[in-house]
């Protein structure tokens, strides 16, 4: 497969050149952005889509649908419906009040130091979980291209390279890079979907007939299996499975609005109306993409069949190889790699700046930098620590589906970040104790439940922790989200903070009308 490898490297180089070029193009206008924040709605929408559609969406969902059929499609639906929460509840109040991180929203009328500290910790953890999935995806991809290399070496090599590139290259987090990547990913998905449908004479009827009767020979038992892939229940079985599915849905639908790297995207638009329209543009791009997972997910199930998918995260590239040969395989792999690199860039920057700025400078050093460049050094160290942690965990979680892994990041975000943010927006009585309790309990409960779940604990030797899983669900949301809300409410009711309540009138006027948020444009 060396031909494919060279093609892949060429495509990656071209992609990097396009992103470098587009970032340069925007450079002249960057002073303009910072002053007027006049990014257009469709541009910001595509950038949100670029930040959002990660290895999980492309590699993970394709793999889940290819092996588990309909149940995998539930991720596609959840990832899209989640944007209604962003559109209806968080986007406009955030842009209107001029706040762009969860820490900004909480620090506004509460005590800034404790909430910034907790918010920075939460951002770091959510980001690390998100990053693990990207590392697993990147490692599998490199292993597929270089069959001689072990998975461990692939993850470490590509992981370290990506972090070094992001930390020292820097420019990747710009809006234009995410836009370029979103367009590439959409184009790759359209091509893949068209090639799948060509196999069925472009007939939806033929396609679904094939999906409902997939036959393959199980390589382990040698028995022939026929399965209807449209049937629910292949992954989420029985009562526990049903609860797990609802738990997953809760994490997806509430987690997106708590993702740090999505929230900061509203910084670049001039007003709430543009923020609203950019969410709508993002939903169009994301919705179109998730609709297409039907074609390349079920397409992989019928054309490759589970017998020919040794690594579930690689079903989309393998489908490309099957349909379009080495050239197309190299192209799709490069698109996947660019997707991962762009998401890693966005994540690294939101995590490391949040830590360096919110935690190190604002909390530990009371908002003063002791020496020039110190904050940048701390951010770099934080980026390497997050990267290294993600790489180590990615080695332990090698065969896990990346969409599932990202689902865990959503669960942590939904349990820890969403409750304090929603309560800060809508509840006058809400205070610092409530925010810290909510963040603390949301974080610890979701992480603890993940550690005790069947994804980490197991008796078959490949599990990270040996032993019978203590918590039966793979997705912790159904327990940890209510716990996060309860803790935030309880913490609030057990203490009183009159200053925070006095400032609520100001905050709601700002959040609802946008009064005072346009300082930047009106001077």
């Amino acid at each position, binding site marked *: 497969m060396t031909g494919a490898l060279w093609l892949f490297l060429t495509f990656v180089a071209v992609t990097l050149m396009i992103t470098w070029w587009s970032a340069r193009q925007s450079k002249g206008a*960057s*002073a303009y*952005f*910072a002053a007027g924040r006049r990014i257009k709605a469709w541009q910001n929408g595509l950038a949100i889509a670029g930040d959002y559609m990660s290895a999980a969406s492309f590699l993970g969902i394709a793999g889940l649908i290819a092996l588990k059929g*309909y149940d995998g499609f*539930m991720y596609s*639906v959840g990832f899209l*419906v989640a944007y*209604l*929460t962003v*559109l*209806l*509840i968080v986007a406009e109040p955030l842009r209107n009040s*001029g706040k762009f*991180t969860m820490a*900004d929203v909480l*620090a*506004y*009328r509460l005590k*800034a130091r404790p909430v910034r500290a907790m918010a920075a910790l939460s951002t770091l953890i959510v980001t690390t979980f998100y990053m693990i999935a990207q590392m697993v995806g990147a490692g599998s991809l490199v292993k597929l291209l270089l069959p001689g290399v072990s998975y461990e070496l692939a993850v470490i090599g590509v992981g370290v390279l990506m972090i070094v590139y992001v930390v020292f290259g*820097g*420019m990747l987090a*710009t809006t234009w890079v995410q836009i370029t990547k979103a367009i590439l990913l959409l184009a790759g998905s359209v091509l893949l979907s068209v090639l799948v449908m060509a196999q069925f004479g472009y007939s939806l009827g033929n396609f*679904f*007939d094939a*999906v409902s009767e997939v036959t393959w020979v199980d390589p382990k038992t040698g028995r022939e299996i026929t399965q*209807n892939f*449209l*049937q*629910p*229940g292949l992954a*989420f079985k029985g009562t526990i499975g*049903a*609860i797990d*599915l*609802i738990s997953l*849905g809760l994490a997806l639908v509430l987690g997106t609005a708590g993702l740090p790297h999505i929230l*900061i995207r509203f*910084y*670049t638009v001039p007003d709430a109306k543009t923020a609203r329209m950019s969410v*709508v543009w993002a*939903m169009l791009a994301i919705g179109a993409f*998730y*609709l297409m997972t039907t074609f390349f997910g079920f397409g992989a199930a019928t054309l490759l069949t589970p017998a020919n998918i040794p690594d579930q995260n690689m079903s989309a590239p393998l489908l490309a190889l099957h349909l379009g040969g080495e050239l197309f395989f190299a192209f799709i792999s490069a698109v996947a790699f660019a997707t991962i690199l762009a998401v890693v860039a966005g994540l690294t*920057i939101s995590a490391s*700046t*949040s830590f*360096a*700025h919110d935690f190190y400078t604002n909390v530990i050093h009371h908002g003063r*930098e002791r020496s020039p460049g110190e*904050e940048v050094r701390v951010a770099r160290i934080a980026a390497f620590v997050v990267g290294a942690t993600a790489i180590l965990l990615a080695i332990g979680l090698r065969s896990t589906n990346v969409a599932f892994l990202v689902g865990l990041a959503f669960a942590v975000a939904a349990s820890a970040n969403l409750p304090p943010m929603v309560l800060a927006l809508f509840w006058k009585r809400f205070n610092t104790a409530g925010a810290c309790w909510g963040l603390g309990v949301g974080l610890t409960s979701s992480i603890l439940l993940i550690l005790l779940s069947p994804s980490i604990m197991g008796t078959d030797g490949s599990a990270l922790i040996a032993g019978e899983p203590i918590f039966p669900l793979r997705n912790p949301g159904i327990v940890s989200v209510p716990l996060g809300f309860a803790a935030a409410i309880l913490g609030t009711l057990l203490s009183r903070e009159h200053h925070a309540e006095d400032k609520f*009138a100001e905050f*709601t*006027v*700002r959040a*609802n*009308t*946008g*009064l*005072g948020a346009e300082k930047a444009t009106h001077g």
Partner: protein
Amino acid sequence: MSDKDLDLTTEVSSEADVTRLGRSGPKPDHERTADEDVDIVDWERVASTADFAALVQARARFLIPATIFFLVYYFALLILVGFFPDLMSTPVPGLGPVNLAYLFAISQFAMVGFVTWAYLRAAKNFDAIATKIRDDALSNRSEAKP
């Protein structure tokens, strides 16, 4: 060294990104707390106007039912698929092998489109009231402080 030299943002991220690192100048707007923010209007007074009450009420009247609707529609899918997989596997008449579960899942995409469309329609009204509140508040301010 000027402030510009100390701003090392470009080394780790782009100038358009949110948190500028290595900044020695004043806090950016979005990091200000209520105490540090400039009071451009009398917030309590704006909050007590009839227009503001109408805006909050209009938003709530749309957002609460809309949020409940989309959450119920979405979790209905998960509950039905999770607890009644056999019922949901029933093929839809006239659609060949396509079953209730897949049809319901695809209808979620349409539901998202519908709620978004309804919100964009309703938001025109919110924008109109919000603009009026902003204009009134800012013109009252200039009368009070000529």
